[in-house]
């Protein structure tokens, strides 16, 4: 009895969706790290161990920076993940992020506001910038069904070049001799959290609060209900009378706003050197943090809380990775490791299925032993798709399901 109870408890936990994507992410990370280690071994066998140690633990010595660099990718990750819940692929996070930066910079330089609210208005301006850049692909998608991936990619370029052009044309903001923006006034910079030698600021706290807010929106509100329903099954949500046009626009607006906030948090961060600030260089490069957001969202299974963890993790190994230079490693090596992790996380469901099959085989073997007492089948026919069978193995339930469907659609 005791044993059964334990078993069913274990089952409950292992069947939980969140849990399974968590294990999948862990598996992806482990595989990525092993692969990264192999690459380091090949590159520089002598110092691979120390270098790998830095990758794993180096971030802990710079915990402030880990959170500082986690902030923008957390926001773009949330942006991509949120849109993904509705079945939209917001690959335009970079453009929205850049727009957010520009709007925040503009307010920071051009508006003279009281010190206490200046940075808040800057942040809000960044949000509006991103929102505008997100809502346009949303409108195209909703009204005339233009694929959001295409518009978003175009808008990444349009946004980036526009911002470069605007900044270079503004003599207050741009110092042409240094090919970068001037230092922002202190009042426009985010309050620092006071970690020494680090730019970590209130941005991370706001970002985490936003992630929790998104979690609530997705799971408790009517809007979240509609949004997820649309993401799961577009036809059914239409049948249920949900307004797909409005929801698409709204989702893209929110996703854009989140990316825009990420841009604002990045550019408004206080510098650890007094009297300076973060600067923007108009060098015609699409912001990498937008694409990193896709990685973060993937690794976090588009779940807001998962995205918090994955952004911190990625930031952590990035920081650690930058320390491998001490042992003569190129910083690109860590980019490869991260890329591998993302690569594996795309396979995470597949890996979960493989794991599931393994567990199932194990369990079937066990159950075959006490088969006689374990035949409570036929109590009622409606348990045909047995709940026990349900989640043990993703792929087996899918084949079962297909069979079921075959039977029904006569």
């Amino acid at each position, binding site marked *: 009895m005791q044993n059964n109870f334990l078993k069913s408890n274990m089952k409950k936990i292992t069947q939980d969706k969140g849990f399974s994507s968590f294990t999948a992410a862990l598996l992806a990370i482990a595989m990525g790290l092993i692969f990264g280690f192999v690459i380091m071994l090949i590159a520089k066998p002598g110092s691979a161990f120390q270098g790998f140690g830095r990758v794993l633990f180096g971030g802990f010595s710079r915990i402030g920076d880990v959170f500082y660099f986690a902030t923008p990718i957390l926001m773009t990750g949330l942006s991509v993940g949120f849109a993904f819940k509705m079945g939209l692929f917001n690959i335009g996070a970079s453009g929205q992020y850049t727009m957010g930066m520009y709007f925040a910079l503009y307010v920071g330089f051009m508006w003279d506001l009281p010190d206490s609210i200046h940075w808040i208005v800057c942040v809000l301006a960044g949000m509006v910038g991103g929102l505008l850049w997100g809502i346009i692909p949303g409108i195209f998608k909703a009204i005339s069904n233009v694929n959001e991936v295409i518009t978003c990619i175009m808008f990444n370029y349009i946004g980036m070049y526009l911002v470069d052009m605007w900044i270079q044309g503004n003599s207050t903001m741009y110092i042409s001799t240094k090919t970068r923006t001037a230092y922002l006034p202190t009042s426009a910079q985010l309050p620092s959290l006071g970690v020494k030698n680090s730019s970590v600021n209130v941005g991370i706290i706001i970002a985490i609060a936003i992630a929790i807010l998104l979690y609530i929106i997705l799971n408790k*509100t009517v809007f979240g209900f509609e949004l997820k329903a649309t993401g*799961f*099954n577009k036809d059914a949500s239409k049948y249920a*009378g949900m307004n797909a046009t409005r929801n698409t626009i709204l989702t893209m607006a929110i996703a854009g706003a989140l990316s825009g906030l990420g841009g604002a948090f990045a550019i408004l961060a206080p510098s650890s050197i007094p009297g300076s600030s973060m600067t923007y260089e108009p060098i015609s490069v699409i912001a990498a943090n937008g694409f990193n957001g896709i990685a973060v969202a993937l690794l976090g299974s588009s779940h807001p809380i998962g995205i918090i963890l994955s952004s911190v993790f990625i930031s952590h190994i990035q920081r650690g990775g930058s320390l491998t230079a001490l042992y003569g490693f190129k910083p690109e090596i860590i980019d490869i490791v991260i890329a591998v992790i993302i690569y594996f996380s795309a396979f995470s469901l597949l890996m979960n299925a493989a794991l599931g099959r393994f567990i199932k085989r194990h369990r079937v073997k066990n159950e075959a032993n006490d088969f006689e007492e374990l035949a409570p089948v036929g109590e009622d*026919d409606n348990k*045909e798709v047995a*709940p026990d069978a349900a989640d043990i193995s993703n792929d087996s339930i899918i084949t079962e399901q297909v069979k*079921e469907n075959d039977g029904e659609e006569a």
Partner: protein
Amino acid sequence: MENYIIEMLHITKVFPGIVANDDITLQLKKGEIHALLGENGAGKSTLMSVLFGLYQAEKGEIKKNGEVVQISNPNDANRLGIGMVHQHFKLVEIFTVLENIILGVEPNKMGFLQKKEAREKVVALSKKYGLYVDPDALVEKISVGMQQRVEILKMLYRDNEILIFDEPTAVLTPQEIDELMEIMRGFAKEGKSILFITHKLNEIMSVADRCTVLRKGKCIGTVDIKDTTKEELSRMMVGRDVNFSVEKKESKPGDVILSVNNLAVTSKTSKNNAVNDVSFDVRAGEIVCIAGIDGNGQTELVSAITGLEKITKGKIKLCGQDITKASIRKRSKVGMSHIPEDRHKHGLVLDYNLEDNIVLQRYWQPEFQKNGFIKRQEVRNYAENLIEKYDVRSGQGPVSITRSMSGGNQQKAIIARELDKKHELLVAVQPTRGLDVGAIEFIHKQLVASRDAGKAVLLVSLELDEVMDVSDRILVMYEGDIVGELDPKNTTVEELGLYMSGAKRDKVKEEAYAE
């Protein structure tokens, strides 16, 4: 010692947590038509999959002509002469009939196709068995009946002697069903052995020699058809007495609830209109059934009425309000409930749990939300209430993921949702599709109850029994037109079939509706 061509002895197939086949023995004689009867999920498909090599049984053995054989994949089955017509045809739509028939066993000389040879063989076979097909027609262009003949020819082309038919009649008209039965008898006379999977008792009674009944994974027994009755078979299948005829009182039609005028919908696949100038009324307290062979515009008509698709012409009125251009939500508010044709595509968000699906049409109402936040407790209470009232069974009650539920219970959940919602008109499209007799009985009762409660019911069905039993009035659709209006009490299945196949048509009452 009987002469069995195929014997499946003591087959046990276990899936985690469930015994799909429990010690089942099925013996097929040479030259007989053997029916395999059972409700959905009784294990028929699993058993046939074991025979066809798609699954391996944990226990038991398969013998052919008395010798034990190992069937580990469909190719093995093929080699042993076992062929199967699947319920969903496995045809390449953009290939011709001939190409489909030879697919996988293409006759070739050094890699070059020898179509001529193949064609001669196919033509000879089709003549011999009266299976008329046009070898050069594209599969996507031919009728469902002909597609099925292609599938049968595929088996014959491979010289199979054991033919498995998986619910072959589900897609056919009465005339086509008769033809198929005739063809099957012909095969049996030729000495081929047929396994016929179905849950339609009439067909078994008319064509089969013996019948094996499965229930909940167990073999209930094998009976000779000549010694049994329909009632006995159904009792074996369901485990209790089933009431076949739908009991209902005389209908008392009231006010017009739904009024459709000169409705036209363009077709997505051809230049013609899918629905062509159709007009009809549905009154409170009556069940109007739209009959017809699949693909004659019923789907488009319903999509137009429910707002899923735009119309090109015409007017739709619900409860006196013009809803021609109204949104789906608006139609729902005015009083339309809709049991959709495809419960997985439209009816349910399969990844949502049961309670979320139960409020899928109502989550926005003040009863279930406050300031944009869903009242979880109310949703739970409401769902539990409906689950009990409509006997929706699932693994974990309101929090079961809908995908894991059986088809019958998924359908029950939809019916619970649509019937419990405030409505004046119920549009039900093939509400019993793919369900077993027990569930069908339940759904028919609900439809009649809804009618008796003064609701208007518009039923679209491809099942003739359902059309004849449930409806108060039948409209037959053929190629986008309503070609006949019949009273089920004064018509026969044969006459209905003539209308459905386009052989007969009235200029019914078009004048009466014309404005």
